[in-house]
Each structure stands twice: as structure tokens, then as C-alpha cells.
């Protein structure tokens, strides 16, 4: 879909005196095709799920009169097979209200910008099929985060937490030889594989009641980031210890009450709770060693 809109301005083309009859013909044919296609689609849509779907979207803008108080707006969207929630939002914005605001970019679940609260669950708009949801579909900004405008939430706190765990590689020493890589066993890479998939969407953090209560809690994504480095056999010993100290502070792993909601909502299927638990045990082990 991207940002294109159905062609509404066909007259202007027809009016233009064209010196290229074959082109005229092609355009006319194309228009005809498009029309029949549109009709077929409408018919098909009717067959599938009634022809349109109602989209209820949370609206808020601190600056605009009538929007300072949050409200829900309803948009009627023609349903198409394969339509995602993001497609529906784009349709609503381009066809009805260009001030409808939400983050999005890749449309393929890799940029992590469009995590919303869709029918009561944190999900990526682009990864969620309209056909899989109960209608009408309700879209809200991520809970537990300040709302900037419409579906856009303040992400800075999430980024701060991610960066609080020293999210970078810091080996003790590197191979000397020219063009020589550090060795890593395929098994070790397999161990950290899932943890490296995080796209920083913030869905997990938003779903966690503890993160909601304790603002300093590092949160599942940041702990998972720490896990990714802690478990990497290439990581330097010193940095591992430092990182362990960061995550075993009061607002680190101990806050997790194993609610599993983070694991449930993660669009990349990262077993977050499992990683947090592993680090808790790791911290206990390390501390017992010191005794």
C-alpha cells in the first residue's frame, strides 16, 4: 500500500490534449481495468467480512483545540485481503484526516516504530492482519508511556533504559593477525540468536506492570540486551562483570515478577522472561562465588 492513494483525479488526464493516441488508449484501458478491479474487490470484500471495517483511533494533541482532551475517532475503511492495521491507518490518514499521526517506516516488522495497543494488546501495526482481529478495531498508543500526539508516545525513557546496560561489545583483546576474526562457536551464536532480534519497539516494556510502577526498572528489553552481551563468549571478562553489576542492582532483574506479558507480546518472539530468569540465576551464582 505504502502512501499511495486511489486515483481520484482522473479528469485532469482526460482533458489534456494528448499527441500520443496509443498512450491515451493505454491510460483509458488502465482506468477501465482499475474500475473493474475496484468493483471486483468491493464484491470480494463483501464476501469476506462485510465490505468495510470500523477503525477507532485514539486522538490527542496538546496544541489543537478540541484535541487537548483525548478522544476516539472512528474511520470507515474498505477492507481488502491482506490489509494490515498499518495499511488501515494510512488509508484513514490519506483519505480522511491528514493530521492523524503515528510513527511507521519499514512496513515489515524490522524498524520497530509502530507498536500500538491494538484491541487491548501491544502489537506492531504492520504485522497485524485486520482479518485476524475482532471488528471494530481499536487502536491506542502504547500504555504506560506518555502520549505526545495521537498514537505517538514518548520513547526517550525506553531508549535511556536500553542504553543504561552498556549495550555494546567490549572485548578484552582482539586477534592480532590481519583480517582475523574472533572465533565464536555456532552453539554460542545459537544461544544468543533470539536475544539479538530485538527491534526496540517497546511493546514489552509497555506490557509490564512492574515497569509501569517502577520507573527505574530497566525493563525486559534492556535486560535482554544485557543478556545478548553477557552470554556472548567473545565479550570481555571485565565488561561482563560491570554489566552484571548494572543489571543486579535494585532496579534490575530483581524487579521482574515473571508476569510473562513481555514474552507474550514481543513481535520477535524473544523468550524475554527466560532470559531475565537466567540472568537472575547467573547473578546469584556469581555472588555466591564471592562468599
Amino acid at each position, binding site marked *: 500500500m505504502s502512501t499511495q492513494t486511489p486515483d481520484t*483525479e482522473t479528469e485532469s488526464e482526460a482533458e489534456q490534449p494528448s499527441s500520443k493516441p496509443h498512450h491515451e488508449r493505454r491510460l483509458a484501458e488502465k482506468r477501465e481495468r482499475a474500475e473493474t478491479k475496484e468493483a471486483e474487490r468491493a464484491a470480494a470484500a463483501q464476501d469476506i467480512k462485510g465490505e468495510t471495517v470500523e477503525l477507532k483511533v485514539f486522538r490527542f494533541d496538546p496544541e489543537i483545540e478540541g484535541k487537548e482532551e483525548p478522544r476516539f475517532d472512528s474511520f470507515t475503511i474498505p477492507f481488502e485481503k491482506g490489509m494490515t492495521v498499518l495499511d488501515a491507518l494510512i488509508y484513514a490518514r490519506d483519505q480522511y484526516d491528514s493530521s492523524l499521526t503515528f510513527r511507521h517506516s519499514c512496513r515489515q516488522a524490522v524498524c520497530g516504530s509502530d507498536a500500538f495497543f491494538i484491541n487491548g494488546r501491544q502489537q506492531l501495526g504492520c504485522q497485524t492482519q485486520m482479518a485476524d482481529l475482532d471488528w471494530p478495531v481499536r487502536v491506542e498508543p502504547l500504555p504506560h508511556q506518555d502520549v505526545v500526539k495521537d498514537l505517538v508516545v514518548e520513547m526517550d525513557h525506553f531508549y535511556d533504559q536500553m542504553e543504561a546496560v552498556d549495550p*555494546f561489545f567490549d572485548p578484552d583483546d582482539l586477534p592480532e593477525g590481519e583480517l582475523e576474526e574472533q572465533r565464536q562457536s555456532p552453539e554460542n551464536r545459537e544461544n544468543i540468536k533470539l536475544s539479538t532480534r530485538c527491534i526496540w519497539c517497546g511493546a514489552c516494556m509497555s506490557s509490564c506492570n512492574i515497569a509501569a510502577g517502577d520507573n527505574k526498572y530497566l525493563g525486559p528489553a534492556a535486560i535482554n540486551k544485557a543478556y545478548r*552481551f553477557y552470554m556472548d563468549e567473545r565479550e570481555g571478562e571485565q565488561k561482563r562483570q560491570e554489566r552484571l553489576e548494572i543489571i543486579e542492582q535494585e532496579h534490575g532483574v530483581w524487579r521482574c515478577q515473571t508476569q510473562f506479558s513481555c514474552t507474550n507480546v514481543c513481535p520477535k518472539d524473544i523468550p524475554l522472561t527466560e532470559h531475565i530468569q537466567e540472568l537472575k540465576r547467573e547473578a546469584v551464582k556469581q555472588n555466591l562465588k564471592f562468599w
Partner: protein
Amino acid sequence: MYEHDVIVVGGGGAGLRAAIAAHEEGADAAIVTKLHPVRSHTGAAEGGINAALREGDSWQDHAYDTMKGADYLSDAPAVDTFAQTAPDEVIQLEHWGMPFSREEDGTVSQRPFGGLSFPRTTYAGAETGHHMLHTLYEQVVKRGIEVYDEWYVSQLAVTDEDDPNERDCHGVVAWDVQSGEVAGFRARDGVILATGGPGQAYDHTTNAVANTGDGVAIAYRAGVPMEDMEMVQFHPTTLPSTGVLISEGVRGEGGILYNSEGERFMFEYGYATNDGELASRDVVARAELTEVAEGRGVEDEYVYLDMRHLGEERITDRLENILHLARDFEGVDGLEEPMPVKPGQHYAMGGIEVDEHGETCIDGLYAAGECACVSLHGANRLGGNALPELIVFGARAGRHAAGADMPEPKIETGPDPDAEREDLGVPLGEPSRAEATTDGGTVEHPDSDPDAVVEAAADAERERIETLLEREDGVNHADVRADLQATMTENVNVFREEAGLKQALEDIQEARERYQDVYVADKSRTFNTDLQHTIETRNLLDVAEAIAMGALAREEFRGAHWRAEHQERKDDEYLKHTLVSWNDGDPELWYRPVLLEGDEGAYEPKERSY
């Protein structure tokens, strides 16, 4: 006003690598980006990163493959530098912790890729770009490099000497998307543009919504030529409703393509009787569109890619992510049904003209990554060659901007007064040229004080935004963009014919005229994406026009560029780069010869067959 030594615009692979390099060179570098860095489209790359790392492989082979794949439209100094440096840069990524896929002995795995004479593609699962992007961002965090995220760069602060070769770039103008604050960013040593591809010029693309060619357009309007813009790569297997890429892996594993009649057309209609579905990207893309045009497409739009016969076990083992993609983005179960696919815009080989240090003809202005054209990919990019380009040339641009000593570049840049200008015989450029310069071009400066230039540019930008927001009524940018995308997809796609290209240029003219009345319905200063998209659409118009101009001017068939009337490569006539200069709103098209003289002698153009 904010001030740094080096300002990097864009936080994708190229921008992050450039910032790290500048920082390591001792400069105070900052990244200004409209998306948070980890949201950049580099994260979408799946396949891999090419580099000659192993015994039995050599940089010369990599360079040769690249040149051949490019159909000899590349400059040898760029190709040689690239192939020589890629291995170091890939090892650097590994040292920074990138989770590459591994062999049993713990070394980095490499796999074969289309057009390569050696399996030299390093990769990290099916998410190579994601891992590369995050690894680079982690290093940026480690170094404490300042990142202004969600700041939209809309102008360069460039002086207005008549000859672009004499202009200086002193910084950029950006606004904070969240608050609407417009600010100047003064760059003491250099500005590096790394804004990625222009995929949104087409309505069907594998690119992100944020890939709007901003960097290319603002550099162009500041006087830097755009190079080889007609060279656009289309990928044959993308999902029709979203443009999400279905990787070549499916065909590699034995997936087959068929049309609405159930015919395996790659064989039956003789598009590629030997290779069938495994023929090169451009061949398959053209075959699919021919099927659709001749009425054998499904719903007049796409064809089927079927992998059901591979069996559930093999599919879930090797192609599991494809099942997810088809399910999540098209609502199709790849185990039960064939997947609909059609060609989609994928990559821009052309871009901002730069030399092998990433520098443009404007002093202090650099570009790297997909937005730049060092002339590496020529007429066709090989799979797995874009990611290494980001790190090789990103790093070089960063270092050079930060003042590192580097030899005189061999690649020439900037308008050449002696080159002949080609007249395309169609209306081009700004309908009312008087206002052209206020649209992100150069700024008049009272004196040569750099701060004043940046401030003047910021003031001009504030005015532009005010004007856009004040209008109460007019055209919605989304309509203009939709028309533009429609004509590009219709006329400047995989198939190009003279009449269609002229039509496209006329349509673009018309879109430009309508854009004069564009207005922004959202009056809020807070996170105004309506305003942002309106300005992006302006950039797309310039970029799209250059693509169509180049496509019309190049009367041959080379690499990705196919012309109905000209079915062969014409080395005598067209072994040259197409350049388009802004020329104050009256675009000019001209040429510069290709440099085939490399470190190991000259590359001999040969027939491109695999």
C-alpha cells in the same frame, strides 16, 4: 544553533559508520536523523555483505564481478577501493561484536550469491542488515556520539557562488519533529549526507516509507549533480499489497513461478529456458510484467510463486521466515497456497555525485550510502554489495570530513562547463523559477561568515514552513505523491519506452504545478508528520524527474535500464554517466565518461551473461 565538527545526516548503516570514523579521527561528530537510528531501513536487508576474506578469493575477483555486474558503468577507482577495503570493514564489524553466522571452527560463514564468482557473502541469519545496523549503533552509544533523533533535515546551508564547484557547505537546517523547533546546525568541518534510497518515488517498493530521497534532493538543489539516476533496480518477488521482499532463497530452494493459466512461464514463453526461475533479477522481473501485460497475470497484477511442493519439512527448516512474511503481510499461508508476487522498486544505483572519498563538488559536503553515487554499482547492483558500500564509503567520508590525510581523488566531481548539455524537448523543473531557490537551494549570504550562512538558511526554512502552514486550503500532498508514484510505476518502471518516459516527464510537470498549491491541514507544531510528508513529496518530485530524464536520454539497454526502442548495449555511445544539474530550477542533463582504468589495468567491457 547547534555546533559540531562533523554533522552526519541520517542514522542508517552509512551514517553511523561515518560518524564513528569521524569520531575516531578526533572530530566532534553528531548525527541528525529523522528516524531514531535503529529504525533506519538498513535494518531490512536480509541477504548479506560481500567481502573477499578467504584463501582462494581476492579483491581483484570481487572488483571484477562488481564491474561486470554493473555492466561497465562503474568507475574503476571506486570499484577497486571498495573491493580492497570491504574485508577490513567486515572484520571490523566482527570485532565490534556483530553476530555473524558461524562455521564449526568458529569462523565467519560465507555463502554464494548471484553474480559472484566465489562464495564471499558473509551474513547473520536472514537478518544481516538488522544486525549490522544495531552493531553500528551500539558503537555509537559506546563512543557517546551525540544523536539528534527525530530531527528532520530540510535544507543545507550552502553559499551561493555562481559555480557550484566554488560553493561551501557550512551546515544544515533541521527541525525537531516532536516540538516543531527549527534550528541551524553548524558543521565546522563537514556535512555528510547518508539519507538512504528514494523508493517512495514508486508506489510499489521494498523501501521504507521514510526513503524519500531527501538527501539527494537537497544536495541537488544546492548545486551537486545527480548521477546515473535512471539506474533503478527492481526486485522480481515482492508481495503485492505491501512490497515486502520475498528473498531469492525461495527460488534458490526450488520455488516455481506460474501465471494465471497455471503455466510455468519462465520456460514456456522462453524468457529463460536454461535458468528458469533462477535467471537474474531483471530478466525475471521483465518476464513477470510481460505475463501480466499479456493478460496472463492474476487479478491483472501479479503472478504466483509456489513453494508448496518443497514439503512442509523443508520449508519450515530453510524458509521459515518466508512463511511469516507471507502470513503477516499478505495473509497467505505459504504451505497451503501459492504466494502472490510482483516486481517492486528495490534499489537506486544512482545518487549524489561523489568521489571515492565521498566528497561532492561543494566544499565540506559529503555523501555516502544509497543516497550517494560513487559509481560503484553502475547499471546494476549485485546482491550483497550495498551493505559493504555503506561501511567502506561511510568510513571514508567520515575520515575525510574529519580532516584525515587522503590522496587526491581520481574521480572528478562537479559540473563540467565543457560538457554538452542534452535537450530533451520536454518542460522540466520548477514552473516558477523565481521561488526555486527558497526551496532548499543555496542561501544568499551577506558576508562569508559561516554562522551567518547557517542562520540565513534557518530563517529561510522558518519562512517556508510558515507559508506552508498558513495556507488554509489547497492540494493535499498525498494526492500529488500518489499521481507521481502512479506515473513512475506506469512509465519509468522495468519497461521503458520513449512515449511513456515523455509522458512521465509531463505528468511530473503537472504534479509540480499542483504542488505549488499544496497545503498542510494539520496546524500543530507537535509531531507534524503532515508537514514532513509534504516536504518529502517535494523532494520526490526532483528525484523522480531526474530518474525519468536519465531514462529518456539513455538510448540503450544496459543493466537494469531497458528501452523498448534500443535493445542493445551501446558502448561506443553510452559508456558515460548521466548527470542532472539543478541549474536554479531549470534542470540540465549532461554526461561524463566512465573511468575504466583501475589499479590493475583497464577493465574491458564484455558481454554481461551468466
